[in-house]
Protein backbone atom coordinates (compact mmCIF):
# COMPACT_ATOMS: atom_id res chain seq x y z
CA UNK A 1 0.00 0.00 0.00
CA UNK A 2 1.46 3.33 -0.92
CA UNK A 3 1.54 6.36 1.30
CA UNK A 4 -1.54 8.04 -0.13
CA UNK A 5 -3.86 5.14 0.59
CA UNK A 6 -2.40 4.78 4.09
CA UNK A 7 -3.29 8.37 4.82
CA UNK A 8 -6.74 7.78 3.44
CA UNK A 9 -7.28 4.77 5.68
CA UNK A 10 -6.01 6.67 8.69
CA UNK A 11 -8.44 9.48 7.87
CA UNK A 12 -11.34 7.04 7.59
CA UNK A 13 -10.43 5.51 10.94
CA UNK A 14 -10.35 8.95 12.52
CA UNK A 15 -13.68 9.92 10.97
CA UNK A 16 -15.18 6.85 12.57
CA UNK A 17 -14.06 8.16 15.94
CA UNK A 18 -11.69 5.31 16.67
CA UNK A 19 -8.89 7.40 18.16
CA UNK A 20 -7.07 6.24 21.28
CA UNK A 21 -7.54 7.89 24.62
CA UNK A 22 -5.03 10.72 25.00
CA UNK A 23 -3.40 9.17 28.06
CA UNK A 24 -2.50 5.90 26.37
CA UNK A 25 0.65 4.13 27.46
CA UNK A 26 3.09 2.52 25.02
CA UNK A 27 1.72 0.41 22.25
CA UNK A 28 -0.39 -2.69 22.70
CA UNK A 29 -0.03 -5.57 20.26
CA UNK A 30 -2.78 -5.62 17.66
CA UNK A 31 -3.95 -8.30 15.25
CA UNK A 32 -5.82 -8.76 12.01
CA UNK A 33 -7.30 -12.04 10.75
CA UNK A 34 -8.94 -12.18 7.33
CA UNK A 35 -10.07 -15.20 5.36
CA UNK A 36 -11.67 -16.01 2.05
CA UNK A 37 -13.47 -19.08 0.76
CA UNK A 38 -12.34 -20.10 -2.72
CA UNK A 39 -14.27 -22.35 -5.05
CA UNK A 40 -11.17 -24.31 -6.10
CA UNK A 41 -9.14 -27.20 -4.68
CA UNK A 42 -6.80 -26.25 -1.82
CA UNK A 43 -3.81 -27.69 -3.69
CA UNK A 44 -4.49 -25.39 -6.65
CA UNK A 45 -4.63 -22.33 -4.38
CA UNK A 46 -1.45 -23.36 -2.59
CA UNK A 47 0.29 -23.82 -5.94
CA UNK A 48 -0.62 -20.20 -6.70
CA UNK A 49 0.50 -18.59 -3.41
CA UNK A 50 2.73 -21.14 -1.65
CA UNK A 51 6.11 -19.88 -2.77
CA UNK A 52 7.47 -17.09 -0.58
CA UNK A 53 8.51 -15.09 -3.64
CA UNK A 54 5.16 -15.52 -5.45
CA UNK A 55 3.52 -12.53 -3.73
CA UNK A 56 3.83 -10.29 -6.78
CA UNK A 57 2.04 -12.91 -8.89
CA UNK A 58 -1.13 -12.64 -6.86
CA UNK A 59 -1.20 -9.44 -4.77
CA UNK A 60 -2.53 -6.51 -6.81
CA UNK A 61 -0.51 -3.92 -4.86
CA UNK A 62 2.84 -5.66 -5.29
CA UNK A 63 5.15 -4.97 -8.22
CA UNK A 64 7.96 -7.40 -7.34
CA UNK A 65 8.77 -9.80 -4.49
CA UNK A 66 12.10 -11.59 -5.03
CA UNK A 67 13.35 -13.79 -2.16
CA UNK A 68 17.07 -14.51 -1.87
CA UNK A 69 16.80 -18.13 -0.71
CA UNK A 70 13.42 -19.24 -2.02
CA UNK A 71 11.41 -21.09 0.63
CA UNK A 72 14.35 -21.71 2.96
CA UNK A 73 13.87 -20.44 6.52
CA UNK A 74 15.72 -17.14 6.79
CA UNK A 75 15.05 -16.15 3.16
CA UNK A 76 14.61 -12.40 2.78
CA UNK A 77 11.81 -11.11 0.54
CA UNK A 78 12.11 -7.59 -0.84
CA UNK A 79 8.58 -6.44 -1.52
CA UNK A 80 8.31 -3.53 -3.94
CA UNK A 81 4.91 -1.88 -4.09
CA UNK A 82 3.24 -0.42 -7.15
CA UNK A 83 3.42 3.34 -6.87
CA UNK A 84 6.44 3.30 -4.56
CA UNK A 85 7.35 2.01 -1.11
CA UNK A 86 8.86 -1.27 -0.02
CA UNK A 87 9.01 -3.83 2.78
CA UNK A 88 11.65 -6.33 3.81
CA UNK A 89 10.30 -9.61 5.21
CA UNK A 90 12.11 -12.68 6.53
CA UNK A 91 10.72 -16.21 6.20
CA UNK A 92 10.33 -17.87 9.61
CA UNK A 93 8.73 -21.14 8.60
CA UNK A 94 7.47 -22.88 5.47
CA UNK A 95 5.35 -26.03 5.44
CA UNK A 96 4.33 -27.37 2.03
CA UNK A 97 2.42 -30.33 3.45
CA UNK A 98 0.54 -28.08 5.88
CA UNK A 99 0.08 -25.42 3.16
CA UNK A 100 1.30 -22.51 5.27
CA UNK A 101 4.21 -20.13 5.69
CA UNK A 102 5.06 -17.41 8.18
CA UNK A 103 7.29 -14.37 8.04
CA UNK A 104 8.40 -11.39 10.05
CA UNK A 105 9.31 -7.73 9.51
CA UNK A 106 10.95 -5.80 12.31
CA UNK A 107 10.29 -2.54 10.54
CA UNK A 108 7.05 -2.23 8.61
CA UNK A 109 8.62 -0.25 5.76
CA UNK A 110 5.74 1.20 3.75
CA UNK A 111 3.24 -0.10 6.33
CA UNK A 112 2.68 1.92 9.54
CA UNK A 113 3.57 -1.02 11.83
CA UNK A 114 6.54 -2.41 13.73
CA UNK A 115 7.48 -5.89 14.92
CA UNK A 116 5.14 -7.38 12.37
CA UNK A 117 4.66 -11.15 12.13
CA UNK A 118 2.30 -12.81 9.70
CA UNK A 119 1.22 -16.18 8.37
CA UNK A 120 -0.86 -17.30 5.42
CA UNK A 121 -2.44 -20.73 5.25
CA UNK A 122 -4.69 -22.71 2.93
CA UNK A 123 -6.96 -25.45 4.21
CA UNK A 124 -9.37 -27.81 2.55
CA UNK A 125 -13.04 -27.58 3.47
CA UNK A 126 -15.07 -30.20 1.66
CA UNK A 127 -13.16 -29.89 -1.60
CA UNK A 128 -13.00 -26.10 -1.51
CA UNK A 129 -10.16 -23.94 -0.22
CA UNK A 130 -10.18 -21.49 2.65
CA UNK A 131 -7.28 -19.05 2.81
CA UNK A 132 -6.51 -17.45 6.18
CA UNK A 133 -4.09 -14.54 6.45
CA UNK A 134 -3.28 -13.27 9.91
CA UNK A 135 -0.89 -10.76 11.35
CA UNK A 136 0.30 -9.48 14.72
CA UNK A 137 1.98 -6.09 15.03
CA UNK A 138 2.46 -2.91 16.99
CA UNK A 139 1.55 0.51 15.65
CA UNK A 140 4.19 2.55 13.82
CA UNK A 141 4.73 5.07 16.62
CA UNK A 142 6.32 3.44 19.65
CA UNK A 143 5.57 6.03 22.34
CA UNK A 144 2.60 7.76 23.89
CA UNK A 145 0.32 10.08 21.89
CA UNK A 146 0.94 8.79 18.36
CA UNK A 147 0.12 10.99 15.36
CA UNK A 148 -3.09 9.74 13.70
CA UNK A 149 -1.30 8.18 10.73
CA UNK A 150 0.81 6.03 13.08
CA UNK A 151 -1.73 5.01 15.73
CA UNK A 152 -3.34 1.60 16.39
CA UNK A 153 -6.28 2.27 14.09
CA UNK A 154 -4.02 3.30 11.21
CA UNK A 155 -1.98 0.11 11.65
CA UNK A 156 -5.07 -2.12 11.72
CA UNK A 157 -6.62 -0.35 8.72
CA UNK A 158 -3.46 -0.71 6.65
CA UNK A 159 -2.94 -4.42 7.35
CA UNK A 160 -6.65 -5.16 6.89
CA UNK A 161 -6.53 -3.49 3.49
CA UNK A 162 -3.45 -5.46 2.43
CA UNK A 163 -5.08 -8.75 3.43
CA UNK A 164 -8.52 -8.04 1.94
CA UNK A 165 -7.21 -6.92 -1.43
CA UNK A 166 -4.79 -9.86 -1.56
CA UNK A 167 -7.39 -12.46 -0.62
CA UNK A 168 -9.91 -11.06 -3.10
CA UNK A 169 -7.35 -11.41 -5.87
CA UNK A 170 -6.51 -15.00 -4.81
CA UNK A 171 -10.19 -15.84 -5.15
CA UNK A 172 -10.40 -14.18 -8.56
CA UNK A 173 -7.28 -15.90 -9.89
CA UNK A 174 -8.03 -19.36 -8.48
CA UNK A 175 -11.67 -19.45 -9.57
CA UNK A 176 -10.81 -18.54 -13.14
CA UNK A 177 -11.80 -21.44 -15.39
Amino acid at each position, binding site marked *: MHALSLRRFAAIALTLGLSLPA*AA*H*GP*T*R*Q*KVVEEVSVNAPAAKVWALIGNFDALAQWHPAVEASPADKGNEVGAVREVKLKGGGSLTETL*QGHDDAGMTYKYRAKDGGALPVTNYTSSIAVRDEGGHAVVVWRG*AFYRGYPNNDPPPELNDEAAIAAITNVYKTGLAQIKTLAERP
Partner: protein
Amino acid sequence: MRHGPPLLGGLVGAWVLASVPADAAPYAYITNQGSHDVSVIDLATQAVVATVGVGRSPAGVVASSAAGKAFVSNPDSRDVSVIDMRTQTVVGTLPAGSGPVGIDAAPDGRRLFVADWFRNRLLVIDPAQPGAPAVEIPVGRAPAGVAASADGHSVYVAERDDDSVAVVDLAHARVRGRVSVGTHPFAVLEDAPRSRLYVLNVLSDDLTVVDTQTLQVLATVGVGHAPYGAALADGGRLIYVTNQHDDSVSVIDADTLALRQTLHGFGYPEGVAAHADRVYVVNWMDDAVSVLDAASGREIRRIDTGRNSRGFGAFIGAPAAH
Protein backbone atom coordinates in the same frame (compact mmCIF):
# COMPACT_ATOMS: atom_id res chain seq x y z
CA MET B 1 3.09 -17.14 39.30
CA ARG B 2 3.78 -18.79 42.61
CA HIS B 3 3.58 -22.28 43.84
CA GLY B 4 3.31 -23.30 47.43
CA PRO B 5 6.03 -24.19 49.87
CA PRO B 6 7.07 -27.81 50.35
CA LEU B 7 4.68 -29.54 52.70
CA LEU B 8 4.98 -32.74 54.69
CA GLY B 9 3.24 -34.63 51.91
CA GLY B 10 6.18 -34.10 49.57
CA LEU B 11 6.45 -32.52 46.18
CA VAL B 12 3.18 -33.68 44.70
CA GLY B 13 1.24 -32.66 47.80
CA ALA B 14 2.81 -29.23 47.66
CA TRP B 15 1.49 -28.55 44.20
CA VAL B 16 -1.91 -30.04 44.68
CA LEU B 17 -2.46 -27.88 47.74
CA ALA B 18 -0.67 -24.87 46.37
CA SER B 19 -3.31 -22.54 45.11
CA VAL B 20 -6.80 -23.81 45.67
CA PRO B 21 -8.66 -25.00 48.77
CA ALA B 22 -9.98 -28.50 48.28
CA ASP B 23 -13.68 -27.75 48.68
CA ALA B 24 -13.97 -24.58 46.62
CA ALA B 25 -14.66 -24.32 42.92
CA PRO B 26 -11.64 -22.86 41.16
CA TYR B 27 -11.90 -20.23 38.45
CA ALA B 28 -9.61 -19.04 35.70
CA TYR B 29 -9.45 -15.28 35.16
CA ILE B 30 -8.44 -14.54 31.56
CA THR B 31 -7.51 -10.93 30.74
CA ASN B 32 -8.76 -9.79 27.33
CA GLN B 33 -6.59 -6.90 26.24
CA GLY B 34 -8.66 -6.07 23.15
CA SER B 35 -12.11 -6.05 24.77
CA HIS B 36 -11.04 -4.58 28.12
CA ASP B 37 -12.60 -7.32 30.18
CA VAL B 38 -11.91 -10.61 31.96
CA SER B 39 -13.43 -13.96 31.03
CA VAL B 40 -14.11 -15.98 34.18
CA ILE B 41 -14.02 -19.72 33.53
CA ASP B 42 -15.49 -22.11 36.08
CA LEU B 43 -13.06 -25.02 35.99
CA ALA B 44 -15.67 -27.43 37.34
CA THR B 45 -17.98 -26.87 34.35
CA GLN B 46 -15.27 -25.71 31.91
CA ALA B 47 -17.47 -22.80 30.85
CA VAL B 48 -17.30 -19.00 30.99
CA VAL B 49 -19.59 -17.94 33.83
CA ALA B 50 -18.94 -14.19 33.73
CA THR B 51 -17.33 -11.51 31.59
CA VAL B 52 -16.20 -8.71 33.84
CA GLY B 53 -15.44 -5.24 32.49
CA VAL B 54 -12.20 -3.88 33.97
CA GLY B 55 -9.78 -1.02 33.13
CA ARG B 56 -8.14 -0.37 29.77
CA SER B 57 -6.16 -3.12 28.01
CA PRO B 58 -5.88 -5.62 30.88
CA ALA B 59 -2.78 -7.79 30.62
CA GLY B 60 -1.44 -9.12 33.94
CA VAL B 61 -3.44 -11.10 36.45
CA VAL B 62 -3.06 -12.95 39.72
CA ALA B 63 -5.93 -14.93 41.23
CA SER B 64 -5.16 -14.93 44.96
CA SER B 65 -7.07 -17.63 46.79
CA ALA B 66 -5.82 -16.21 50.10
CA ALA B 67 -7.38 -12.84 49.28
CA GLY B 68 -10.45 -14.34 47.61
CA LYS B 69 -9.83 -11.88 44.82
CA ALA B 70 -8.34 -11.67 41.36
CA PHE B 71 -6.16 -8.64 40.65
CA VAL B 72 -5.82 -7.42 37.07
CA SER B 73 -3.26 -4.92 35.77
CA ASN B 74 -4.57 -2.38 33.24
CA PRO B 75 -1.61 -0.68 31.49
CA ASP B 76 -3.73 1.83 29.57
CA SER B 77 -5.74 3.07 32.54
CA ARG B 78 -2.70 2.67 34.80
CA ASP B 79 -4.51 0.83 37.55
CA VAL B 80 -5.40 -2.55 39.01
CA SER B 81 -8.97 -3.88 39.00
CA VAL B 82 -9.99 -6.00 41.98
CA ILE B 83 -12.48 -8.80 41.22
CA ASP B 84 -14.30 -10.58 44.05
CA MET B 85 -14.15 -14.32 43.40
CA ARG B 86 -17.56 -14.99 44.94
CA THR B 87 -19.59 -12.38 43.07
CA GLN B 88 -17.33 -12.08 39.96
CA THR B 89 -17.67 -8.31 40.09
CA VAL B 90 -15.19 -5.46 40.34
CA VAL B 91 -15.08 -4.31 43.95
CA GLY B 92 -12.21 -1.85 43.73
CA THR B 93 -9.70 -0.06 41.52
CA LEU B 94 -6.17 0.69 42.75
CA PRO B 95 -3.86 3.28 41.14
CA ALA B 96 -0.71 1.55 39.84
CA GLY B 97 1.98 3.82 38.44
CA SER B 98 2.41 4.62 34.76
CA GLY B 99 2.09 1.23 33.05
CA PRO B 100 1.41 -1.80 35.23
CA VAL B 101 2.23 -5.13 33.56
CA GLY B 102 3.31 -8.17 35.61
CA ILE B 103 1.49 -8.72 38.89
CA ASP B 104 1.66 -11.20 41.74
CA ALA B 105 0.34 -11.39 45.30
CA ALA B 106 2.01 -12.30 48.58
CA PRO B 107 1.19 -15.83 49.78
CA ASP B 108 -1.15 -14.35 52.43
CA GLY B 109 -2.90 -12.18 49.82
CA ARG B 110 -2.22 -8.98 51.75
CA ARG B 111 0.21 -7.31 49.39
CA LEU B 112 0.37 -6.92 45.63
CA PHE B 113 3.57 -6.65 43.62
CA VAL B 114 3.24 -4.80 40.34
CA ALA B 115 5.86 -4.05 37.68
CA ASP B 116 5.68 -0.42 36.54
CA TRP B 117 6.99 -0.69 32.98
CA PHE B 118 7.74 2.96 32.21
CA ARG B 119 9.11 4.13 35.54
CA ASN B 120 11.27 1.06 36.23
CA ARG B 121 9.74 0.38 39.63
CA LEU B 122 8.32 -2.53 41.53
CA LEU B 123 5.20 -1.26 43.27
CA VAL B 124 4.14 -2.84 46.56
CA ILE B 125 0.44 -2.16 47.08
CA ASP B 126 -1.77 -2.92 50.07
CA PRO B 127 -5.15 -3.73 48.52
CA ALA B 128 -6.89 -3.07 51.86
CA GLN B 129 -5.65 0.56 51.78
CA PRO B 130 -6.73 1.78 48.35
CA GLY B 131 -5.87 5.42 49.13
CA ALA B 132 -2.38 4.79 50.48
CA PRO B 133 0.59 5.43 48.18
CA ALA B 134 2.41 2.33 46.95
CA VAL B 135 5.89 1.52 48.18
CA GLU B 136 8.15 2.03 45.16
CA ILE B 137 11.33 -0.01 44.73
CA PRO B 138 13.67 0.97 41.85
CA VAL B 139 14.47 -1.94 39.51
CA GLY B 140 16.01 -2.30 36.04
CA ARG B 141 14.62 -1.27 32.68
CA ALA B 142 11.23 -2.41 31.38
CA PRO B 143 10.19 -4.58 34.34
CA ALA B 144 7.75 -7.20 33.06
CA GLY B 145 6.99 -10.46 34.87
CA VAL B 146 6.83 -10.62 38.66
CA ALA B 147 6.87 -13.63 40.99
CA ALA B 148 6.51 -13.50 44.78
CA SER B 149 8.50 -16.17 46.59
CA ALA B 150 6.54 -18.79 48.48
CA ASP B 151 8.36 -17.89 51.72
CA GLY B 152 7.03 -14.33 51.51
CA HIS B 153 10.48 -12.72 51.72
CA SER B 154 11.36 -11.97 48.10
CA VAL B 155 9.97 -10.90 44.77
CA TYR B 156 11.60 -11.75 41.45
CA VAL B 157 11.28 -9.18 38.67
CA ALA B 158 12.21 -9.73 35.01
CA GLU B 159 14.14 -6.67 33.80
CA ARG B 160 13.45 -7.10 30.10
CA ASP B 161 15.70 -4.44 28.63
CA ASP B 162 18.60 -5.27 30.97
CA ASP B 163 18.49 -9.04 30.29
CA SER B 164 18.43 -9.73 34.02
CA VAL B 165 16.22 -10.67 36.94
CA ALA B 166 16.18 -8.62 40.13
CA VAL B 167 15.70 -10.27 43.50
CA VAL B 168 13.87 -7.82 45.74
CA ASP B 169 14.24 -8.08 49.50
CA LEU B 170 10.81 -7.12 50.81
CA ALA B 171 11.93 -6.49 54.41
CA HIS B 172 14.36 -3.81 53.27
CA ALA B 173 12.48 -2.70 50.13
CA ARG B 174 15.53 -2.97 47.89
CA VAL B 175 17.16 -5.18 45.27
CA ARG B 176 19.43 -7.63 47.08
CA GLY B 177 20.70 -9.53 44.06
CA ARG B 178 20.60 -9.65 40.30
CA VAL B 179 21.03 -12.53 37.86
CA SER B 180 22.03 -12.19 34.20
CA VAL B 181 19.75 -14.34 32.05
CA GLY B 182 18.97 -14.64 28.31
CA THR B 183 17.76 -11.91 25.97
CA HIS B 184 14.56 -10.02 26.84
CA PRO B 185 13.27 -11.96 29.85
CA PHE B 186 9.52 -11.46 30.19
CA ALA B 187 7.88 -14.05 32.44
CA VAL B 188 9.24 -15.59 35.64
CA LEU B 189 7.98 -18.65 37.51
CA GLU B 190 9.08 -19.87 40.94
CA ASP B 191 9.43 -23.62 41.59
CA ALA B 192 9.62 -23.43 45.37
CA PRO B 193 10.00 -27.15 46.16
CA ARG B 194 13.07 -27.30 43.89
CA SER B 195 14.41 -23.86 44.99
CA ARG B 196 14.40 -22.72 41.39
CA LEU B 197 13.27 -19.80 39.31
CA TYR B 198 12.45 -20.24 35.62
CA VAL B 199 12.99 -17.18 33.44
CA LEU B 200 11.57 -17.03 29.89
CA ASN B 201 13.74 -15.17 27.41
CA VAL B 202 11.63 -13.95 24.50
CA LEU B 203 14.45 -13.07 22.09
CA SER B 204 16.93 -15.87 22.86
CA ASP B 205 14.17 -18.51 22.71
CA ASP B 206 15.19 -20.23 25.93
CA LEU B 207 14.49 -20.66 29.59
CA THR B 208 17.07 -19.82 32.24
CA VAL B 209 16.96 -21.99 35.37
CA VAL B 210 18.20 -20.11 38.46
CA ASP B 211 18.98 -21.58 41.88
CA THR B 212 17.10 -19.29 44.25
CA GLN B 213 19.44 -20.11 47.16
CA THR B 214 22.70 -19.20 45.44
CA LEU B 215 21.33 -17.07 42.56
CA GLN B 216 23.51 -19.08 40.17
CA VAL B 217 22.30 -20.12 36.74
CA LEU B 218 21.84 -23.91 36.79
CA ALA B 219 20.90 -24.48 33.17
CA THR B 220 19.60 -22.89 29.99
CA VAL B 221 16.93 -24.88 28.15
CA GLY B 222 16.08 -24.15 24.51
CA VAL B 223 12.39 -23.86 23.67
CA GLY B 224 10.46 -22.43 20.67
CA HIS B 225 10.29 -18.89 19.29
CA ALA B 226 9.28 -16.18 21.74
CA PRO B 227 8.50 -18.00 25.02
CA TYR B 228 5.92 -15.92 26.89
CA GLY B 229 4.45 -17.98 29.71
CA ALA B 230 5.25 -20.97 31.91
CA ALA B 231 3.44 -23.16 34.42
CA LEU B 232 4.22 -26.23 36.49
CA ALA B 233 1.76 -29.03 35.82
CA ASP B 234 1.03 -32.70 36.48
CA GLY B 235 1.90 -32.48 40.17
CA GLY B 236 4.97 -30.37 39.45
CA ARG B 237 6.53 -32.99 37.19
CA LEU B 238 6.24 -30.96 33.99
CA ILE B 239 6.95 -27.39 32.92
CA TYR B 240 4.67 -26.08 30.17
CA VAL B 241 6.10 -23.15 28.16
CA THR B 242 4.13 -21.21 25.53
CA ASN B 243 6.06 -20.27 22.37
CA GLN B 244 4.21 -17.31 20.97
CA HIS B 245 5.79 -17.12 17.51
CA ASP B 246 5.72 -20.87 16.91
CA ASP B 247 2.08 -21.40 17.89
CA SER B 248 3.44 -24.20 20.06
CA VAL B 249 3.92 -25.30 23.65
CA SER B 250 7.10 -26.96 24.95
CA VAL B 251 6.67 -29.58 27.65
CA ILE B 252 9.78 -30.01 29.80
CA ASP B 253 10.53 -32.65 32.43
CA ALA B 254 11.06 -30.56 35.57
CA ASP B 255 13.44 -33.07 37.17
CA THR B 256 15.79 -33.61 34.24
CA LEU B 257 15.05 -30.36 32.34
CA ALA B 258 14.83 -32.44 29.15
CA LEU B 259 12.31 -31.46 26.49
CA ARG B 260 9.55 -34.08 26.67
CA GLN B 261 7.46 -32.97 23.68
CA THR B 262 6.37 -29.98 21.61
CA LEU B 263 2.63 -29.46 21.14
CA HIS B 264 1.23 -27.65 18.09
CA GLY B 265 -2.00 -26.04 17.00
CA PHE B 266 -2.10 -22.96 19.25
CA GLY B 267 -2.60 -19.33 18.18
CA TYR B 268 0.06 -17.01 19.60
CA PRO B 269 -0.13 -18.75 22.97
CA GLU B 270 0.71 -16.51 25.93
CA GLY B 271 -0.55 -17.16 29.45
CA VAL B 272 -0.61 -20.68 30.85
CA ALA B 273 -1.72 -22.10 34.20
CA ALA B 274 -2.46 -25.54 35.58
CA HIS B 275 -4.96 -26.98 37.98
CA ALA B 276 -5.47 -30.61 38.98
CA ASP B 277 -4.81 -32.76 35.90
CA ARG B 278 -5.35 -30.00 33.36
CA VAL B 279 -3.41 -27.17 31.74
CA TYR B 280 -5.01 -24.01 30.39
CA VAL B 281 -3.26 -22.22 27.51
CA VAL B 282 -4.43 -18.76 26.42
CA ASN B 283 -4.42 -18.24 22.63
CA TRP B 284 -4.09 -14.51 21.94
CA MET B 285 -4.63 -14.86 18.19
CA ASP B 286 -7.64 -17.15 18.48
CA ASP B 287 -9.44 -15.51 21.43
CA ALA B 288 -9.71 -18.88 23.13
CA VAL B 289 -8.29 -21.03 25.92
CA SER B 290 -7.07 -24.53 25.08
CA VAL B 291 -7.71 -27.09 27.81
CA LEU B 292 -5.06 -29.82 27.82
CA ASP B 293 -4.62 -33.06 29.67
CA ALA B 294 -1.51 -32.31 31.73
CA ALA B 295 0.13 -35.71 31.59
CA SER B 296 -0.28 -36.30 27.84
CA GLY B 297 -0.60 -32.76 26.47
CA ARG B 298 -3.68 -33.81 24.51
CA GLU B 299 -6.20 -31.03 23.81
CA ILE B 300 -9.54 -31.76 25.46
CA ARG B 301 -11.49 -28.69 24.37
CA ARG B 302 -11.38 -24.99 23.59
CA ILE B 303 -13.21 -22.25 25.46
CA ASP B 304 -13.89 -18.90 23.75
CA THR B 305 -12.78 -15.73 25.56
CA GLY B 306 -12.91 -11.99 24.84
CA ARG B 307 -10.64 -10.33 22.28
CA ASN B 308 -6.83 -10.54 22.36
CA SER B 309 -6.75 -12.71 25.45
CA ARG B 310 -3.46 -12.79 27.35
CA GLY B 311 -3.79 -14.19 30.89
CA PHE B 312 -0.29 -13.07 31.85
CA GLY B 313 0.16 -14.46 35.36
CA ALA B 314 -1.14 -17.04 37.82
CA PHE B 315 -4.72 -16.78 36.64
CA ILE B 316 -6.32 -19.71 38.52
CA GLY B 317 -7.68 -19.42 42.05
CA ALA B 318 -10.66 -20.08 44.28
CA PRO B 319 -12.34 -18.24 47.12
CA ALA B 320 -11.64 -19.75 50.52
CA ALA B 321 -14.41 -21.89 52.01
CA HIS B 322 -16.51 -20.31 54.73
